[in-house]
């Protein structure tokens, strides 16, 4: 576990020792390290068991014991895929960064440091540790933008840094507050997520008003990251000005840190506040979907268009998340991964052409389909996966997110109105509008620009990068079972943690319970220490109840 997290950092230290003139060493060294990390994360997947919602491969070492701060890491079905996505996308980003000639050594070092920080975010189970990693991602990304960015890099990088930093300040305050609360309840303060969740599961963590405040403080940090409308404006600037590798990682991984934060912290720790806030956040998600799409449709800059499309697509992730349904949760996590692949690929391919032509304006392009047929074909596939064409990855995610939202709206769950998912569906129409327009602008028509007439098609190794992403486009699109199977137990646990009454909420700390394949919370005995997913089912404690009746939820939120 720790090996995966720290390997890139060790690699970075190693590269730092190599003089900067050995550019090839830096390039291939960084590539090798990122591939090794990916292989290591594959072994995580191999060791992972889908049969339990508890954290697996947990490692806990006291860090600052006086304050109860631990180095505690572990994965479950949600973070597993984000870890895999991170290690995979980093390979792509590093490999494509072979084009970086200016200060190549530092570039690679920053990328690897960034990878460790991102992996840490997805694995940390201690709030302080999480916060440290969360902030640590900002620094390398700041430098990536500020040093290797486009014309407006200063503005974009400072904006990016301050925006996200400002958001996470609130989270820090909430984390400290949680420490004091736990100190009061347990006698000894803790930052341990598992321990805090146990309090929340019994309804002891905080009463609703305080929960709302804490939820809001966390939510601000994550909302900026996602980004939610209207705190999204750092994103187009940062994405556009960042170097290609930076854009890929920003879109593919760093935006997911927001969605992940909601899933990992806000929902299990503040379940009552979550139900209260769900309609509001869902509303913002719907606004984001439509708003991002409309804004994307009027861009003249290729990268800016893709950046705004992220605002729209992440809206679907949040839509599914706050539907608080099994379909919605699954869709949300899957769509996080999907967006990483599709939008990562879009940024990658825009980067390829930018590397050649040094312009991102649509007016400089046109008719490239004849000039670069392979590039056009690959771009078409990626574009369509972003449009959400069935049989490709984007569809499964968006479909499940909207289905979950529709279900929530139809049942009136948590007071979510039905018009929200209906309006969100319009985002799918608009996605076709702006993405097809983009494709038309670049690839259709006549190739009249003499500069473009000299372009060769993309090189074999660049094609390989694209194909590796396209593989996942179809894999997730045609056989999502590989991915959803691992998630379901964790998402079921999470759903019960949010929707059940205090006392019935399953606790991560209590390994004598688990969720079964139907989604019921059951007693679990004879747990195999080597394979935590292997246990014997006992009594059903809470039935799956995928269709929570609106009355139940309404009655609950009234009581509170």
């Amino acid at each position, binding site marked *: 576990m720790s090996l995966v997290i720290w390997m890139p950092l060790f690699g970075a230290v190693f590269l730092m020792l190599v003089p900067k003139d050995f550019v090839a060493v830096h390039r291939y060294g960084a590539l090798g390290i990122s591939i090794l990390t990916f292989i290591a994360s594959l072994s995580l997947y191999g060791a992972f068991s889908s049969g339990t919602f508890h954290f697996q491969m947990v490692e806990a070492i006291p860090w600052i014991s006086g*304050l109860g701060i631990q180095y505690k890491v572990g994965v479950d079905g949600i973070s597993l895929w984000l870890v895999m996505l991170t290690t995979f996308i980093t390979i792509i980003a590093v490999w494509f960064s072979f084009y970086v000639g200016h200060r190549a050594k530092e570039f690679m070092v920053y990328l690897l440091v960034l990878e460790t920080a991102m992996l840490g975010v997805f694995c940390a189970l201690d709030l302080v540790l999480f916060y440290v990693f969360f902030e640590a991602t900002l620094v390398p990304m700041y430098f990536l933008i500020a040093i290797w960015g486009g014309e407006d890099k200063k503005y974009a990088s400072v904006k990016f840094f*301050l925006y996200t930093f400002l958001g996470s300040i609130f989270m820090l305050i909430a984390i400290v507050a949680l420490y004091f609360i736990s100190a009061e309840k347990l006698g000894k303060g803790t930052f341990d997520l598992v321990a805090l969740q146990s309090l929340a599961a019994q309804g002891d963590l905080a009463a609703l008003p305080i929960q709302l405040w804490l939820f809001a403080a966390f939510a601000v940090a994550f909302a900026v990251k996602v980004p939610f409308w209207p705190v999204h404006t750092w994103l187009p600037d940062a994405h556009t000005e960042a170097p290609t590798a930076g854009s890929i990682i920003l879109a593919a991984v760093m935006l997911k840190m927001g969605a992940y934060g909601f899933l990992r912290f806000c929902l299990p720790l503040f379940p009552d506040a979550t139900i209260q806030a769900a309609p509001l956040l869902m509303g913002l998600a719907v606004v984001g979907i439509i708003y991002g799409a409309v804004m994307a449709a009027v861009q003249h800059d290729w990268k800016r268009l893709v950046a705004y499309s992220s605002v729209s697509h992440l809206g679907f992730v949040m839509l599914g998340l706050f539907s608080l349904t099994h379909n919605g949760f699954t869709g949300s996590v899957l769509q996080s991964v999907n967006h990483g692949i599709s939008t990562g690929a879009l940024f990658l391919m825009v980067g390829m052409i930018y590397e050649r032509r040094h312009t991102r304006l649509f007016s400089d392009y046109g008719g490239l389909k004849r000039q670069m047929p392979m590039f056009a074909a690959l771009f078409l596939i990626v574009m369509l996966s972003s449009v959400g064409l069935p049989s490709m990855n984007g569809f499964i995610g968006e479909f499940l997110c909207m289905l979950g939202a529709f*279900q929530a709206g139809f049942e009136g769950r948590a007071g979510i109105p039905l018009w929200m998912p209906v309006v969100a569906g319009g985002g799918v129409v608009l996605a076709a509008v702006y993405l097809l327009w983009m494709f038309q602008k670049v690839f259709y028509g006549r190739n009249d620009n003499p500069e473009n*007439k000299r372009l060769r098609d993309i090189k074999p190794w660049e094609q390989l990068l694209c194909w590796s992403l396209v593989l996942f486009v179809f894999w997730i699109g045609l056989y999502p079972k590989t991915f959803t199977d691992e998630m*379901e137990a964790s998402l079921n646990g999470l759903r019960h943690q949010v929707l059940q009454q205090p006392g019935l909420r399953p606790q991560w700390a209590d390994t004598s319970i688990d969720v079964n394949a139907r989604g019921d919370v059951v007693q679990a005995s004879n747990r195999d220490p080597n394979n935590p997913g292997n246990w014997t089912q006992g009594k059903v404690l809470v039935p799956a109840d995928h269709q929570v009746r609106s009355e139940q939820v309404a009655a609950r939120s009234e009581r509170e």
Partner: protein
Amino acid sequence: MTTVWDYIWIVQLLPVAGFLAQALFGQRIIAMFGPAMGRRICGAMAVVPIALAFVIGVFVFYKLTELAPDQRVQISTWFNWIDLQTLRVPFELRVDPLSLTMVLIVTGVGALIHLYATGYMATDRDYPRFFTYLNLFIAFMLMLVLGNNLALVFIGWEGVGLCSYLLIGYWYHDIANAKAANKAFIVNRIGDWGFVLGIFLIYVTFASSQAIVGDEARLLSFDVILPLAEKVLPTFGPAVVAAVPILLFIGAMGKSAQFPLYLWLPDAMAGPTPVSALIHAATMVTAGVYLVTRCHVFFELSPIAMLVVACVGAFTAIFAATVAFGQTDIKKVLAYSTVSQLGYMFLACGVGAFYAGMFHVTTHAFFKALLFLGSGAVIVAMAHEQDMRRYGALRKYLPITHGTMLIGWIAIAGIPPLAGFFSKDDILGKTFASSHYWTEHGWLVDPKILYAIGLITAFMTAMYMTRMFWLTFLGKEERWRESAAGVSDEHAHHEAHVHHPHAHAEHEDTHGFFLSDDEVLERERAEHEAEHHDVLTPDHQPKEVVPSMWLPLVALAALSIVGGLVLSGGYPFSELLHWDTQHLFRDWNAIAAAPTLLPAAEMFHADHMTEWILIGSSVLAAILGIGVMAFQHRLGIPKSDREITGLKRIMGAQWGFDGAMYKTFVDFGGRFSQGFYRWFDKGVIDGLFVNGSAWTVQSFGKLFRKAQTGYVRSYALTMLLGVVVILSYVIWKTNR
């Protein structure tokens, strides 16, 4: 265990294999064997899978007819596509009379059109790309009609939309084609929005009802939901009962080009003619009718939804017929005629005669494919000129095309005993006869009015088709000889485009990104040669098309002659296909165990006398229509056609509807969004709040200029200090 029904997977996968082979090896084959031979091989690779699929389809169909009528639903499952605790969607294909009928149309007519396309596209340099898309289309279309659950239907549904998009924009050099392609995809997506919401609504109602027991989460599968629809939906109240079919119908409106979502179909004629024949006439656009028929149980539950379907259908039928009068492009006439005929099919579904709708789907596939392919032959013979005003008297140059088109013309006009007569008469008859049933069940509109609209449309159809046929084949004037060649200098224009590379010394090509100047020139030369277009000159001599093109014409003409007769009631084949009213309702419902809510016999009640009067009036409408137009054209092209003016002009411009939509959504919408972006996103959020607060901070900062260095590292230091302070406080507090 494999059964004979699993063979249907071969039918499904053959076009997929064809697609993959064409996509991966097409270009290589052409490069290896040279253009002529390579194209022949690629063409064979495209046609053979579809033809083979047809043969296997026939075999499966034959096997199906051997079963007892109530056994005729077989499902073949492969693996689970989406597999959640709450939703299971397997890849499962449904073999029943309805799906196999569509399979036979798609593969049969599809194979003929593929064959035709090998001739039509013979000189196109992107030959493999064309057949890649075309095979992919067949694959998706089969998925659409064979899929046993709504999600698989949706894969096919969007997939055929994608292929339609790719093929409309096939000649993408002309940006207008690309825009037409976008329009098609986007308008379809609006329909899909409705379709998806319909799927969601079906899912949530069935999921939250307790009707489905066990762990079976196949909540979108037809064999699960159709039999239970009657039990489940009414428990959610009349709004849901009406909303499900209406949402599905919105999807159908997009795909089947019903008002107001028909807008994309006329523009779709920008694609190559075989595409128009296959996708935009015979198969894809009928997918909406198929969907409505497949889900007919949902529709029958809600009289309101039925009324909506019938009225939209009838209105579209007559609306599109009026527009067809104002067209000069031969393919546009056929396009509006298609929209109009699709309206008929929905009219049939709306009054409850679903089988009549499917009957018309079938016969329409025959004669409309024939008409489109025939028009393609004319277009090829006339050097890609599509304006009918520049045709005339082509019958002596194109005897086979003329003969087959003649059959298509009288078939669509509704002259017995050709195919169009039977199906159209069936629709009109059932519309009339359903009158008393529907008015009893609270329809606001008497179906007799719809019948009248249908009859007028039949009359108009006969008229505009006669106009088209006359302008193209009959008369004495050879009008292309009258016109001066105005386009011939286009060539010279392109000449000027050949780019002479200047020195590119400013960019050093370290990565090998760019072509050398020589290579650029070489490419441009090839480009230029390939773009050589024929121009219709006054001394043009039209020639009959090659056999690979006229053979399909003959086959389709034969089908257009006998198709209606064979498939209508009272003949041995129809018994096999079960398209008799009684059979259709009895069979499908018995099979799916979905009780029919409309008592079939009682519904279409008409005595013999009335029946004969109805038949007589539709024949009369057809003959009258032909007669009126023949009279108008007896002296050559009428004045109102030489210059399209007056009413014809308004009609031709779709009564201004397209223009208004364009102005509202594209022009205004675009400018509004543009302004909104500048004003709100850049101005208010970014300018006022983000940069505004930054500016405020900066102004304050001027007071503390020393502290504000502007470097992130100093901010980081501040942050560190802050953390230290907070942590010290924490330590102090805990150790107190």
